[in-house]
């Protein structure tokens, strides 16, 4: 850290302090520029310049119905994944705050265990579980629901993606719920509110910042998902990422693939920019009350 420590007296040394913090971040910034900045710039340029300069690739993207279908589907699937995650994570995170330390440890472990095996292997597990002769279909058939297809359908993709993304919903929700003063609920009830009313007027609004934070993270991560839809999905559940990959690797259409990538990238950043102030103010509100 102080390999460049000047051996001069203290006055110039102090002057050196102003640039030194920046110098420490420099190696990381250089690598960032080379491995993230330059590649992304390349993609933007290619989307505008191949085969010739102009916006033709974007005109093509927004002009072809199939692309718009996939774009819309990407949003729909991400929205469903987010909804499923909110519904499943909310009671789970609540229970984490309501139980003793031992049960909580078990609940936390259940959230973290999926991270212990690699993402690809987890998706493989879903291929095994959801296949037509798989466990879930056998159970469904035994229960009288015959002929339900899960693998290579949108439902299958949503089930698999939601399981992968659920921890990203549970953890922020839990961290917000942990800070909610449960005496407020008791106060509401002592003033005559029924438990359900106390929940909807007191607890739910206080926990919303966690819901927003988790939902934004899950939605943004879902938009860019590639592996799970590629393995669990079929032609009718293709998402934008797969389309980008096809254009670039199979069709060698760098311009078109790049334009799609830029659309995905811009969407992600716009969503982040929209969410950031909302989330920040909600957090502040939660902190105040």
């Amino acid at each position, binding site marked *: 850290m102080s390999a460049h420590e000047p051996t001069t007296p203290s006055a110039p040394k102090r002057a050196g302090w102003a640039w030194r913090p920046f110098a420490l*971040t420099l190696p990381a910034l250089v690598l960032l520029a080379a491995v*993230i900045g330059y590649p992304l710039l390349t*993609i933007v340029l290619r989307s505008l310049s191949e085969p010739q300069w102009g916006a033709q690739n974007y005109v093509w993207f927004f002009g072809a119905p199939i692309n718009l279908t996939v774009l819309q589907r990407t949003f729909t699937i991400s929205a469903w994944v987010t909804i499923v995650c909110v519904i499943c994570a909310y009671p789970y995170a609540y229970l984490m705050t309501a139980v003793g330390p031992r049960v909580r440890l078990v609940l936390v472990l259940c959230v973290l265990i999926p991270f212990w*095996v690699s993402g690809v292997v987890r998706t493989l597990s879903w291929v095994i579980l959801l296949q037509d002769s798989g466990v879930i279909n056998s159970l469904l058939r035994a229960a009288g629901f015959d002929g339900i297809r899960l693998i290579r359908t949108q439902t299958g993709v949503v089930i698999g993606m939601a*399981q992968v993304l659920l921890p990203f919903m549970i953890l922020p929700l839990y961290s917000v719920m942990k800070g909610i003063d*449960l005496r407020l609920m008791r106060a509401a009830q002592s003033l005559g509110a029924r438990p359900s009313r106390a929940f909807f007027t007191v607890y739910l609004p206080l926990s919303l910042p966690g819901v927003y934070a988790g939902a934004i993270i899950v939605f943004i991560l879902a938009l860019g998902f590639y592996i799970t839809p590629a393995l669990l999905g079929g032609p009718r559940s293709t998402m934008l990422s797969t389309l980008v*990959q096809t254009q670039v690797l199979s069709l060698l259409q760098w311009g078109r693939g790049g334009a799609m990538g830029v659309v995905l990238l811009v969407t*992600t950043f716009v969503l982040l920019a929209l969410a950031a102030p909302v989330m920040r103010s909600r957090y502040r509100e939660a902190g105040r009350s």
Partner: protein
Amino acid sequence: MEMKPLTRVILGLVCLLVAIWLVAPTLVVVPMSFNENKSLAFPPQGFSWQWYQNFFTNPDWSSSFLNSLKVASVVAVLATVLGTLAAFGLDRMKAGPASLLRMLMLTPMVVPGVVLAIGIYAVYLDTHLVGTMLGFVLAHTILALPFVLIAVSASLEVFDRRLETAAASLGAGALTAFRTVTLPLILPGMLSGLLFAFATSFDEIVVSLFIANPYLKTLPVQIFSSITRDADPTVAAVGTILLFATTILIGGGMLLLGRERKGRP
């Protein structure tokens, strides 16, 4: 909050289902890995070790595993060094530029995988880095950097900088003060950053799929191509080995951490 018994039972049941949904897919690979037939149909038939044998003897699998280990080890060290330096710099900077730079350094976490992958692939094609160790190390390091930055920044936030001043006032040079005072206190943050960086690299698949070639691929790439090619239960064996390895590592880590915490005055 006061709940009716019925509400409590329903809540418990719902959470049990969610917990099963979270954990069960992780464990499915264990029985599959002992399958006698070359199929991924559930339930598995018979019992055999052949897929584990295949993993250790088939060069496709063993070499990709070794590649992953090599890349992840280098990435862990490199990302920890760069991330720690950057975290220090940001910590000592004015708040405005620091938060801007921090945001910039966290972008690898939010850029959609495929977009980054085609970008890096394009650049690597031009610079002949496709299918090279250096290519993997560079790409994975930048993806792992945010995790190190977050971990080390968190431990710097609680670090009392007056300790460094105290050390300096007692005559320690900047390097000595760093080595004897600062480093031991932020070491836990660096270690967890190191671990996260290793895991990120070892697990990375999207960018790796693009920058791998038949001569050099990492384990996730091999797993992915195996899944898409045929129903080879070796994948399940690999999944089981990884599951147990991580369980042992995390279990050991937790034990160590618990002992350390108890040992502290």
